[in-house]
């Protein structure tokens, strides 16, 4: 058997990291006012989160060997993410619709999707990323990825508009009164064969 002290040290380090990552997420949620805890907790949580981030070498430069070694371990062990799924609340979801313009004036609408339900679940994660990111360039890049793959399936399309919106689910009471899911327009991008995309509108 491998020496117990070595295994014990690895064990303690491994779980210390897991606890720190999980605590950091909890503190981040509280610090950003996303929980129902009173605002008095906010400042404390923000300060505590900074300390916890330090412990995870997050404040070291990206090229730091310590930071890289730690991040490598987190990724290969699958412990880089915390466990707050659908917490503290279920996030908003997004919908992306492509408006396909053909040379004969025809217009069709298509929603990006895979061939299987398993792929659709994964593409939903991508849509969430597109909707959540505050980096315009990243959002445009990701929409372009989906637009290109849609274009390959419809090679005779002349121009394409991608419309991103957030889904507004009615509350239980509203649903009972007949209100159904609605969409709030967020961004639109135009793509054509000749030129690169250009964002049309944004709120």
């Amino acid at each position, binding site marked *: 058997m491998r020496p117990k002290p070595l295994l014990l040290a690895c064990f303690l380090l*491994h779980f210390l990291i897991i606890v720190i990552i999980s605590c950091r997420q909890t503190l981040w949620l509280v610090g950003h006012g996303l929980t129902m805890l009173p605002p008095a907790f906010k400042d404390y949580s923000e300060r505590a989160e900074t300390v916890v981030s330090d412990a995870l070498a997050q404040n070291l430069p*990206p090229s730091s060997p310590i930071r890289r070694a730690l991040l490598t371990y987190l990724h290969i062990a699958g412990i880089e993410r915390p*466990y707050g799924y659908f917490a503290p609340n279920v996030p908003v979801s997004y919908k992306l619709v492509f408006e396909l313009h053909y040379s004969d004036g025809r217009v069709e609408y298509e929603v990006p999707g895979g061939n299987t339900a*398993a792929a659709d679940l994964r593409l939903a994660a991508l849509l969430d990323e597109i909707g959540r990111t505050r980096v315009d360039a990243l959002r445009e890049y990701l929409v372009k990825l989906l637009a290109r793959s849609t274009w390959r399936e419809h090679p005779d399309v002349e121009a394409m508009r991608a419309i991103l919106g957030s889904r507004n689910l009615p509350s239980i009471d509203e649903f009972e009164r007949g209100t159904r899911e609605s969409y709030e327009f967020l961004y639109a991008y135009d793509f054509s064969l000749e030129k690169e995309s250009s964002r049309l509108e944004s709120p």
Partner: protein
Amino acid sequence: MESCKERLIRFLFPAQSGNWLTILRIGLGLQVLLYALSLKRDWIYLFAGTGEGLNGRALSEGLLSTESPVVPRLGWLVTLGSHVGLSEWTVLSVTWWFLLCAACGLLAGFFSRSSAIIAWFLHLCAAKSGGLVSYGVDNFMTIGLFYLMLSPLPDRYSLDQKLRKLKTKDRQLLGFFRRVLQIHLCLIYFFSGLTKSLGSGWWDGLNMWRALARPPFNVLDPAFVIRWHYLLPFIGISIFAIEITYPVFIWPSQTRGIWLALIVSMHLAIGAFMGMYLFAMIMIILNLAAFGTTLNWPVNRIGIHHSVSPNDNSSSHSILSRLGVNC
């Protein structure tokens, strides 16, 4: 009187049989098999970096490189393949077949360790290169495969032991890796429940409604969900209560069966009512491997597990009873 350190070491290194490892190996083999089969038609689309696919691999791998350049990724395999004249399509297809073979190896327990390492590596490559299209199931599969790869394989029901006569002698190491999995699950559920309990939507049922009505998880007709809406607050509170108290009630033998049944039921419901079959399955596998074999199943009582080491009782029971735990 034993020192805390000695008690901790005895708790962490109980001599155990490999039944839990058999469940983990076969379960993860099945999981990887279904993972690969479920993505067969979209494998190239999701992971190709050029031409036919979504082409998101470059971005995922670029972002990954900013964190660490040595985390496995499909780009490595594609580059390696290009040196011997293989196209990206060929490399990705071969990767898929290797993953499938590794899954079969795990299911049969044939070259268990090699199969576990290959499955962990290839799944990790896919999960990291497809970072933009990954979700919770990938994390839990990585966790499970990481522990499986490090555990003292082969287990006693594997073909490696039956045909190749390979033996696992170190029962304490078996016990140690089981403890690791058990404690990891406790942390997962505790923090998952804690963060949920901080959201008002889990108290009033709104989050249950949103989770069930939110595409692509809206397997159930919303009208059906609304018909039972008065149950939603109760279910929401129950979910985070079960999760937070998991580390407390999963250890004593009197409550372990109940909590295991509750948590497995919760994951079955997630699979059936939200369409997250793979996610549900991996969580059930991890739970059954960690705590399933310590239940008093009827088969245990009639002596199926006759070859469990006497140490199973002598060491782990005595230590845990001192810690106030029955396992």
